[in-house]
């Protein structure tokens, strides 16, 4: 579950209830002081009928469903009356007129109780379920026999009994109103030691340790809520380092890691997982900060991918905020936010999307690709038990005015979001990160204004009379590492020329380039320059920054070869208003000294790369 219904204290505590005592305490609190259910929640009339003691489950159900944004009236059958309740059209269960019936059957009673053998068990269950399907219009959620403690090896009679009964029930109960629930994954994940406890069956007819009640209730409530609320209908997925390993704009399609024998396997695993969802009718969409051509080339030329570009119903591939991409995808597909999942390896992008769309499920994708699919499965978002909050805005009519107002509000929100990131950028001397600087110079393709693949000697020559710097960005999510490199040369008395400027695309849209520009302006002024000159040299991969200098307030002054030159006058007080979102710290010696050190460095024999 997404566990975002945490307004009331009892719901919040319920989310962390691990023991029976905690569960019952939450339920008691919810019964006396619980917040009234929201009128927008779907309502169910839930009948619980079983062959074991279900008082605790029945007590917890209203709370467990409220935590999943469902309002429930709950009826609990008397102990072990499930057959009569389902078969008899005049039974109290029928009188209750349920919309959903949970039939909870433990193997202990099925295997060792009155019903003997596979045939008798299957016939009894099928007859009861088919009867109630005819006499009511309710959905029937029935548990398949859970593992028995006596299952030792796959030739033990208990295992054979259970697999035979399960298989036959699966084959017989095919109505669209029947949902079969297998508790085996739950038993496996909590472990036999924690699950089985005959003492409580013998004394209280509980087929599992009492402290497993919250977990069992969770599975059952997920299933009920999943039968009510919208299922997972749309997955919006990032590409670089999410759908494939690497950054297509920098590494090229050939450099993407999709090696099934190596770490690329985990990206293929995610693709396979998404392909499975697509086969079940889930819509897929792309939200990626990239050049569209590079993405299409990757899909076209990397045939080993399990997803084709055509598998995605919508693709937003550009450099605008991801929340904007999500908004456009929802608009194009005419979908609400209910049942939408957003997958991105970058926590900043996730936070940005979650901030604008609190209703969208945004799992915290682990940094390690190997852990991602198991983690996603554990969220329960992707089977038929997905629960997301209904969008409160779903039916809002968007007039032109409303749209404009919202755009303004969101602009404010975005600035607040940027401030909330608590970004700090440190400017450092090139020689303090020499290897990383050279690596970035040779690797960065997209945000790279001139794409000059300098070696160390060439770089130091460029900045001899000017200045160079790397920038390291940290935010509240952690250290982004060195994300940008600049090299500014001195051209005559008046001009400082940005000879090299490259940046990681990961941090686009966070006012990093504006902050770096403000730093360059300050340094160029310090050198006595009167103009800052920018140069854009187009390559096959850097269209992204084709309009960077005009956007930053530079004016075109001329062209030469593949390069366009721009100028920014330094004497009229560059405001640098967009640099307010990042605190810039200097880890530089004074400019003159850097220039001196660079000069010296070049003269040291053996230090030239």
């Amino acid at each position, binding site marked *: 579950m997404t566990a975002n219904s945490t307004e009331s204290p009892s719901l919040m505590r319920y989310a962390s209830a691990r*023991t*029976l*005592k905690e569960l019952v305490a939450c339920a008691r609190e919810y019964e006396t002081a619980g917040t009234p259910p929201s009128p927008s929640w779907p309502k169910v009339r839930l009948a619980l009928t079983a062959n074991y003691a279900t*008082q605790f489950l029945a007590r917890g159900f209203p709370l467990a469903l409220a935590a999943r944004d469902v309002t429930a009236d709950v009826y609990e059958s008397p102990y072990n009356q499930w057959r009569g309740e389902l078969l008899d059209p005049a039974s109290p269960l029928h009188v209750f007129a349920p919309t959903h019936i949970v039939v909870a059957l433990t193997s202990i009673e099925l295997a060792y109780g009155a019903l003997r053998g596979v045939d008798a068990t299957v016939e009894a269950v099928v007859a009861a379920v088919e009867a109630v399907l005819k006499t009511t219009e309710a959905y029937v959620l029935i548990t398949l026999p859970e593992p028995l403690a006596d299952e030792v090896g796959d030739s033990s009679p208990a295992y054979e009994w259970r697999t035979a009964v399960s298989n036959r029930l699966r084959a017989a109960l095919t109505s669209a109103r029947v949902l079969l629930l297998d508790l085996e994954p739950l038993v496996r994940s909590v472990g036999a030691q924690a699950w089985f406890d005959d*003492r409580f069956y013998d004394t*209280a007819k*509980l087929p599992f*340790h009492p402290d497993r009640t919250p977990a069992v209730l969770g599975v059952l409530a997920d299933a009920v809520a999943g039968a009510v609320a919208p299922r997972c209908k749309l997955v919006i997925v990032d590409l670089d380092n999410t759908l494939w390993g690497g950054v297509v704009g920098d590494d090229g399609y050939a450099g993407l890691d999709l090696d099934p024998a190596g770490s690329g396997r985990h990206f293929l695993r995610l693709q396979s997982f998404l392909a499975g969802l697509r086969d079940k009718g889930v819509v897929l969409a792309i939200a990626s900060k990239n050049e569209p051509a590079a993405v299409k080339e990757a899909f076209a030329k990397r045939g080993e991918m399990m997803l084709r570009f055509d598998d995605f119903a919508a693709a937003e591939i550009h450099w605008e905020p991801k929340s904007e991409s999500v908004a456009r995808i929802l608009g194009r597909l005419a979908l609400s936010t209910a049942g939408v999942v957003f997958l991105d390896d970058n926590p900043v992008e996730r936070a940005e999307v979650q901030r604008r769309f609190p209703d969208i499920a945004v799992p915290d994708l682990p940094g390690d690709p190997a852990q991602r699919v198991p983690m996603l499965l554990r969220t329960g978002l992707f089977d038929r038990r997905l629960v997301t909050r209904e969008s409160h805005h779903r039916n809002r009519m968007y007039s032109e005015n409303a749209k404009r107002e919202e755009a303004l509000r969101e602009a404010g929100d975005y600035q607040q979001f940027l401030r909330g990131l608590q970004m700090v950028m440190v400017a450092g001397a090139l020689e303090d990160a020499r290897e990383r600087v050279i690596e970035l110079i040779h690797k960065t393709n997209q945000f790279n204004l001139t794409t000059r693949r300098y070696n160390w000697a060439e770089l130091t020559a460029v900045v001899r009379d000017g200045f160079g710097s790397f920038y390291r960005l940290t935010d509240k999510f952690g250290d982004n590492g060195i994300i940008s490199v600049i090299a500014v040369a001195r051209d005559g008395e008046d001009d400082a020329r940005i000879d090299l400027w490259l940046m990681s695309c990961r941090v686009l849209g966070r006012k990093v380039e504006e902050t770096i520009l403000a730093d360059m302006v300050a340094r160029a002024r310090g050198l006595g320059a009167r103009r800052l000159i920018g140069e854009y040299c187009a390559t096959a991969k850097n269209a992204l920054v084709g309009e960077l200098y005009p956007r930053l307030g530079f004016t075109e002054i001329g062209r030469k070869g593949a390069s366009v030159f721009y100028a920014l006058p330094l004497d009229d007080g560059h405001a640098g208003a967009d640099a307010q979102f990042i605190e810039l710290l200097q880890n530089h010696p004074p400019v003159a000294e850097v220039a001196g050190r660079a000069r010296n460095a070049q003269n040291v024999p053996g230090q030239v790369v």
Partner: protein
Amino acid sequence: MKPQVAPMASEDERAGQIVRQSADGNGGHRLSREAVLRKLEPIFRSVVDPDLVLREDLDATKVPLWDSLNHIILMVEIEMQLGVALTTDELAHLRNVGDMVTLLQQKQARV
């Protein structure tokens, strides 16, 4: 199971401290009945009734909220918090505080 007569409380116990007494002459130590009762009281309060004052003469018939559901929770919490294992019989029939104290003394419930 016949409840044992509670021994006289020592000076230390009257001062509210938990004391271990020599148990059975073979080196084992056990909590005093009073100490066991003081360990049980917060468990009863958290499960059954927050205002309950636990006494050895209480049983399930005298405490309205000590029903069969809460009894299961009590047993689970006693096992977990006091580090003892109860048998099926004990789980089913331990509905008297004095019996509980005796049993937990024998099982050397941890402090």
